[in-house]
């Protein structure tokens, strides 16, 4: 008797926990609300199956506990029932898969007007690069990276000169404008993840990976590294500030471009040589 009751309470407790939990997802701050909806749908269908299976089990425990005088039913197979269950399950699974695939299709197809952002990761930090007025990012190589060229931009690539360089772990984004995150790493795997945006993707050394989202809430968000990257993994944080267009444009104007950096270095070098001559 008590066995059935305890199992029933476990099921009931699970349902109540789900309803009253203070721990639930953060408010979505990007266009990926559809992922939340699919999770909710999966919860309904999956949760329904969980509850049904467990309650059926609990019922059996109450109803068919051992009695010496009773004999169990002898029924090796029931083809019809098995067929019904197979098809019902297949249908349920298809109902879950379809929205999942539809949203994935959106996830892998980036809108044309998305602004590209180069997110560069290393052990253990982030920095960012935006295309300049030409709208294109210059190509890069890991071996080019040094103090004068922190992003490893190929010097003979004309698209690279006006790239905006943000040597900080915080980046600003324009609200309601899609961004394509281009991820690369100079050492090990990383993953640029903002829980409120829902989206994530690994940064893999040697290749450039991508994903996109459209922020739709202004404010500051924390960036977490979501792929284990060594002993500093837990401390590899960054930030995002989503701003309205006006504020964003103001911010963008204050940032340094690659050519600014080169010019500054030239001045520094000239001064050095002047000093040396004196």
């Amino acid at each position, binding site marked *: 008797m008590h066995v059935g009751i305890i199992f029933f309470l476990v099921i009931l407790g699970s349902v109540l926990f789900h309803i009253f939990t203070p721990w639930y997802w*953060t408010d979505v701050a990007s266009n990926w609300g559809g992922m939340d909806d699919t999770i909710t749908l999966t919860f309904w269908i999956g949760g329904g199956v969980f509850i049904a*299976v467990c309650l059926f089990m609990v019922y*059996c425990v109450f109803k068919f506990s051992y009695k010496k005088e009773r*004999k169990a039913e002898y029924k090796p197979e029931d083809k019809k029932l098995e067929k019904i269950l197979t098809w019902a399950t297949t249908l349920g699974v298809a109902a879950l*898969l379809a929205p999942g695939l539809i949203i*994935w299709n959106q996830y892998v197809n980036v809108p044309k007007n998305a602004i590209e952002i180069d997110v560069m990761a290393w052990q253990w930090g982030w920095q960012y690069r935006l295309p300049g007025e030409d709208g294109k990012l210059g190509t890069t190589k890991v071996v080019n990276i040094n103090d004068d060229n922190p992003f490893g931009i190929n010097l003979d690539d004309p698209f690279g000169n006006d790239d905006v360089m943000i040597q900080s772990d915080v980046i600003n984004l324009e609200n309601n404008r899609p961004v394509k995150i281009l991820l690369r790493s100079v050492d090990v*795997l990383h993953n640029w993840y903002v*829980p409120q945006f829902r989206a994530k993707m690994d940064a*893999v050394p*040697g290749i450039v990976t991508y994903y996109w989202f459209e922020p739709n809430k202004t404010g500051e968000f924390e960036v977490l590294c979501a792929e284990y990257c060594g002993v500093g993994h837990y401390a590899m944080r960054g930030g995002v500030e989503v701003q309205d267009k006006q504020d964003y444009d103001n911010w963008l104007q204050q940032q340094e471009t690659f050519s600014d950096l080169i010019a500054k270095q030239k001045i520094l070098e000239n001064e050095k040589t002047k000093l040396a001559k004196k």
Partner: protein
Amino acid sequence: MSEDFNDNKTIQAQSSEAISGGGSGIATDADYVRPAEVADQDLYHGHSFITKWIFCQDAKVIGVQYFLLATFTGIIGLILSWLMRLQLGFPELVPFMTAEHYYQFVTMHGMIMVVYFLTALFLGGFGNYLIPLMVGARDMVFPYLNMVSFWSFFVAVGVLLASFFVPGGPTGSGWTLYPPQAILEGTPGSGWGIMLMCISLILFVAGFTMGGLNYLITVLQARTRGMTLMRMPLTVWGIFTATVLAMLAFPALLVGALMMSLDNVLGTSFFMPTILKAGEVLEYGGGSPILFQHLFWFFGHPEVYIVALPAFGIISDLISVHARKNIFGYRMMVWAIVGIGALSFFVWAHHMYVSGMNPWFGFFFATTTLIIAVPTAMKVYNWILTLWRGNIRLNTVMLWCLGFIVTFVNGGITGIFLGNVSVDVPLSDTYFVIAHFHMVMGIAPLMVIMGAVYHWFPLVAGRFLDEKLGKWHFWLTFLGAYSIYFPMHYLGFIGVPRRYFEMYDSPYVTSAVGMNEFISLAAFIVGAAQFILIYNIIKTLKTGKPAGHNPWQACSLEWLTPTVPPEHGNWGDRLPTVHRWAYDFSVPGAKEDFITQTTPPSEVAHTKVEKT
């Protein structure tokens, strides 16, 4: 040594006439069983303590050896999990806990539990003990190789544990061992630690292949007369199919470990692209980190089923015996095991949706992954339909079965979240994943292991385990483990990433502090509860209630040996002959509520048995 061999019994192939006609004395055509085509197996009987208990060739002893060593290793894994939970629930309480140590414990806990505990225990432990007994063989077909298999495992465990004592300590690269970080400074144990891990895995795979060949060939070639494939207990089907998976999947892990070792030691670049480290470009270039992930998960996903399929098989048998009812839909159960096994090789990249592989793979792997849910769901239905109109003994074994159903269904459904590509995006690399796989391949298989221990202990030791202690053990474990992993899913919803040594005070994470403390406390209790079993075993080995022959009134062969516990060679003078499947429980017209597999039809002529 040579005189030992002289003692070996050689039993000539038995003709069908010699045995037909069993107890009732009236032989009918229905009792006919095809005669044996090959002579009985020669066995090496050990005489000294060493040949009987240490370098032993008896599959049953080897099974127990595997079981004990896997359990010992598992206890180390358990202690590591306590240390992790201490850090997560009560940071800074353990003075020596640095981030390095934390990641080393995470890694060793994961690898130990998945490979050295679960895999070794299900296949090496239960496989060795049960396969020959259940199919009516005298032993595994290659007993010597079987012995070498265990001792390879022993050395593999030794090498693994040795890594705690080498400079730099064990590897802290996560159980997935992803390069490049696994072999670069910045990850603890990137020199010696990862080396020893790879060597240990290679030894394990080599040893496992020896055992695996044994399991496969014993099932295919050494079944007794009348034991058709479709009469085998589902336990054998589960272990057999899991072994096929292991033979195909482990080589991928082996080459992965080997290639990474070459990258590490010889400076090859299988998995290493151009890397900038501390301002210097390393002498690597052109390798692909994602290639390793494909190799790893080509092993890693079937690995889930290498653990799950034996668990499916065993639980089917336990439920059937203790519900006094045949397993519902046996043929469906067999095909589901085989189907899940086959499909499990086409789903591996669902671990890699956000790995940076070509995102178009997502469509394929999400579809295959959700297809696998169908045969898995069928198995669940058949378990609960076996309970339906059964005559359920609510003993400790059945409690573990019920606990398994709840945790497995729970973990299976969260698997549908993670398998469904775009739903996986927000949840991957969070605590939701940890909660999911601990529920479905940690707790659920553990429930099966425990059920199996309480079920087969009377066979192995000849005595029952104490029921009262068993029930305490079950309820503490089940309720405790459920309250660890059920709430943990919600940490994942919040977005708490996994493998974080410390959360700091991210605004949306601080709310989880209370939960982390609660989970840690539950983890300490569940871990401690496992020692109830050890106490129970020690106590009942000497003073437990004697079990006698077939104490659960089961139908399958392992309970029908002439001596309990079965001795070397299992069957005395004559191999058993099988006349039916392993699930003839509560047959209408039968005197008792079970008919053993060896009962010829003429003895139970008045019953309404369906053809099996």
